[in-house]
């Protein structure tokens, strides 16, 4: 992993669809401890069970989300591409990652500090509301997809 920057106003200088229309106040506050990180192919970004302390804006590359089980080979259940976001376990108890994230291509992300976000949203709930409204469609989309994966819709097709 390569740590590219430590900029006190990092988020005001980048373009990412998730950040559109957020206030400058939020962007400056959320830049505290934010890092631009690079990962090589196959490098682990976070592992299942670890404490979830980051929210990731994917700037470039592709990330695979994997589930491991002791008696089962690991499976990749989702990929996250550039211009998307990753990681909301820091919002939900017990604040641990539920999957392992691995770079499938050379990948560049902005990692936001979950502690900083929690602290800011307690003081400015209106920005927290906007953040949740922006994040919920991503979660809903993932849930829809998971339902379709569960029913294995290709299984009966062609019968």
């Amino acid at each position, binding site marked *: 992993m390569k740590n590219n920057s430590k900029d006190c106003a990092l988020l005001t200088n980048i373009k990412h669809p998730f950040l559109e229309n957020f206030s400058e106040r939020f962007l400056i506050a959320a830049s505290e401890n934010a890092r631009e990180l690079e990962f090589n192919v196959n490098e682990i970004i976070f592992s299942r069970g670890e404490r979830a302390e980051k929210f990731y804006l994917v700037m470039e590359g592709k990330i695979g989300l994997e589930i491991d089980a002791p008696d089962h*080979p690991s499976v*990749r*259940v989702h*990929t996250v591409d550039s211009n998307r976001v990753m990681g909301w376990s820091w919002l939900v108890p017990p604040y641990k990652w539920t999957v392992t994230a691995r770079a499938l291509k050379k990948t560049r992300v902005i990692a936001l500090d979950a502690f900083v976000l929690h602290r800011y949203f307690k003081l400015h709930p209106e920005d927290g509301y906007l953040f949740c409204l922006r994040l919920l469609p991503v979660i809903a*989309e993932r849930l829809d997809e998971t339902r379709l*994966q569960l029913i294995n819709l*290709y299984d*009966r*097709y*062609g019968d």
Partner: protein
Amino acid sequence: MIGMVIKMSNINQLFESDKNRENPHLPLPFIVEDRFQETPDTVSLTLVPENPGKIFTFSPGQFNMLYVFGVGECAISISGNAMNTQRLIHTVRSVGKISNALTNLKPGDTIGVRGPFGNGWPFAEARGKDLIIVAGGLGLAPLRPMIYEVLSHRDLYRRVEIVYGARTPRDLLYKEELQVWRKSSEIRLQVTVDIGDREWYGDIGMVTSRIPDIKFDPSNSIAFICGPEIMMHSVAEMLELRGLQSNNVYFSMERNMKCGMGQCGHCQFGPYFVCRDGPVFPYSKLEKFMSVKEV
């Protein structure tokens, strides 16, 4: 071999009359020239007419009724190149008695072929437009002739976006061609699987997850979709949200077919017979029936 239950001499007698050959109820004898295992449960069969002079023409998206002697007949989309009038290719997944018999055929076996049936993709309407092709699972089979058509007449189409999804990497059809198409500068292919493994570095997710990423002009585009109905429905809704009108979105429907000619009623879907009126329909015609249970 199941195909040998009936003596070959009897089969030849059955087809000896030219009059019989014109009867759409009577299958023509074709010989299995090649059998290719696409996935653990799916094979592609290359068929040649027993009568070497016979040519077979079809339109991309049409299907044939394939008859395994002594077992039965079922509708299978034609998955080969329509420009090749000497050979037929059918991709068959083993899911029942007849399809299981078809996937167990070997080179040299004889089967009966009736067809082609159905309307096929409206490719003439797609010319001069951005073309979106979305396939799920075995749904790539009836779309492959359309992709061949596009590649043969590339200048007649504008931007071409193809999205193909399968359950796992090992369930992907036509793997070698996918590699070629992926590298082609003439089309853009996205392949995604529901579940990946450590060897898979491509996209994971349903085909719907790739729709936001495709580029097209909603006022001058057409979409051809084939796969499970719930998938086609979801893709059509997403394309509509992006401005593509439902009369420019086409589905290839699947129903249990028997006669292939709109006479028996087995494939009825609302007011339509899928074999005769389809299998390709504009979404605008199907929309109101797709949410009705048991239609």
